[in-house]
């Protein structure tokens, strides 16, 4: 009982610390560039991280989204066949991809690809006293290291989600027209009829929330690393697991809110 309570206490104290980090990050990312004499970070570094986290993730996101779109058509059509409504597969798949699977799968992929890299890189810097060195030079580590990563991912994850949505629809279209002999015109027509702008928008709103979770969890775990290379490995694993769990919890909450 006592152990459970202290674990719960620890959980909430971490949650409080992450929220505090989020507040500080928001200040350095959005307020400080206009208010401080000098931005806490180099503006070019945002572009570099946008390239690393966003542009370079496009191939893997497209690959996964095309496959998931195709698989989803196969699975959905299998069920719809019993009712003789295979035609509707286009609409169902379009809505599931843009509302749910596009944002969620992209976020999980990026957690593994980018969130883990954030924790490993910043965690190594923490262990090598580089973060302390920044503090001693009176360079705010959150402003210098976290804010540009945060801005880059918050901008890029929605873009990647749009890419994933499009690729998913394409994968579905290819499978639907080739495997189930739905005519291209009919497939596109059903998709456009079913898919609302609202569906895409709700996916994009979620993807912004996911980007916040990935950066905050990744950087928080890095800034709190203790104990050398082993600590960095442990923190990286923890950051991926925690971020994925929080993403799915947030997905549930936002789906309920945005439906």
């Amino acid at each position: 009982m006592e152990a459970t309570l202290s674990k719960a206490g620890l959980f909430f104290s971490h949650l409080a610390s992450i929220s505090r980090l989020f507040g500080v990050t928001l200040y350095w990312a959005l307020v400080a560039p206009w208010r401080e004499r000098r931005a806490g970070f180099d503006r070019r570094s945002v572009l570099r991280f946008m390239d690393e986290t966003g542009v370079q993730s496009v191939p893997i996101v497209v690959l996964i989204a095309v496959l998931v779109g195709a698989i989803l058509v196969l699975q959905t059509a299998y069920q719809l066949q019993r009712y003789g409504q295979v035609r509707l597969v286009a609409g169902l798949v379009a809505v599931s991809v843009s509302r749910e699977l596009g944002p969620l799968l992209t976020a999980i992929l990026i957690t593994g690809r980018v969130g883990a890299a954030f924790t490993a890189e910043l965690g190594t810097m923490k262990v090598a006293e580089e973060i302390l060195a920044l503090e001693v030079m009176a360079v705010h580590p959150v402003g210098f290291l976290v804010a540009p990563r945060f801005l880059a991912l918050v901008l890029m994850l929605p873009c990647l989600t749009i890419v994933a949505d499009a690729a998913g629809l394409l994968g579905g279209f290819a499978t639907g027209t080739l495997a189930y002999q739905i005519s291209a015109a009919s497939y596109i027509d059903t998709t456009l009829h079913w898919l609302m702008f609202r569906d895409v928008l709700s996916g994009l709103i979620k993807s912004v929330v996911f980007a916040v979770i990935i950066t905050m969890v990744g950087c928080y775990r890095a800034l709190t690393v203790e104990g050398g290379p082993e600590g960095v490995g442990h923190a990286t694993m923890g950051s991926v697991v925690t971020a994925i769990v929080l993403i799915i919890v947030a997905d549930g909450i936002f789906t309920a809110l945005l439906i």
Partner: protein
Amino acid sequence: MAANDSQAPAPECMIDVRHLRKRFGNKTVLEDVSFTVERGTICVVMGGSGSGKSTVLRHLIGAYKPDSGEVYLDGDEITQLDERALQQVRRKFGMLFQGGALLNSLTVGDNIALPLRHHTELPEETIEIMVKLKLELVGLRDAEHLKPSEISGGMQKRVSLARAIALDPKIVFYDEPSAGLDPIVAGVIDKLMIDLTDKMHITSLVVTHDMQSAFRIADKMIMLHRGRIVAAGTPDEIRESPDPLVQQFITGAPDGPIPLRMSQKEYQVDILGL
């Protein structure tokens, strides 16, 4: 705390540490540590592993807050400052970290330019010149465009020293400056420290357990043992000290008042369960 303890330190006193106490959990790491360092001198803090010397350093740079006690740097009390005020004070000092702590994603030149770009309004051309000047001071002008991973550990430390003095600080802290360096490079670092003190009138505080280097550079030495100051004085006073603790540390004798073994239990009892 007595009333006269809270008085501001004399202007000649760059570092003034008063009655510093710190506990981690129920382990006392620092117990009533007090000392001062005069402007333009080098003070060496020595002591074995776990003596609390690194903890003292972390208090001086504001990374740790003491349980009680005060730390004055150039007249400013830093233990009670908030983050923003601490940042102001931190511009007055530089630090050479044990591992160099250069940012690996930046080139050597950009590492040194970082504090200049962050804290000054200097145009980029001026910053480039200043970076070259600082690199020349440590003899590494050619390394400007290399990444820290492409140069040796000794060179990284010299670059780190160049970065520490980029903003012409009043105080420089050194954490184990000769650790992991060959004797020649360690000698080069020692010479740089003395030059900086003499030419630029920088005040230095050096944490080290390298006795050879300590006696070479120190104006004043402080020896810590188990969180207390056990000896303080000029190098000559320390060398002549009758304290067996100090003598054991200077000579590096394995047997003496400082136990080699961590365990306080009887050997036979532990092994044989007697």
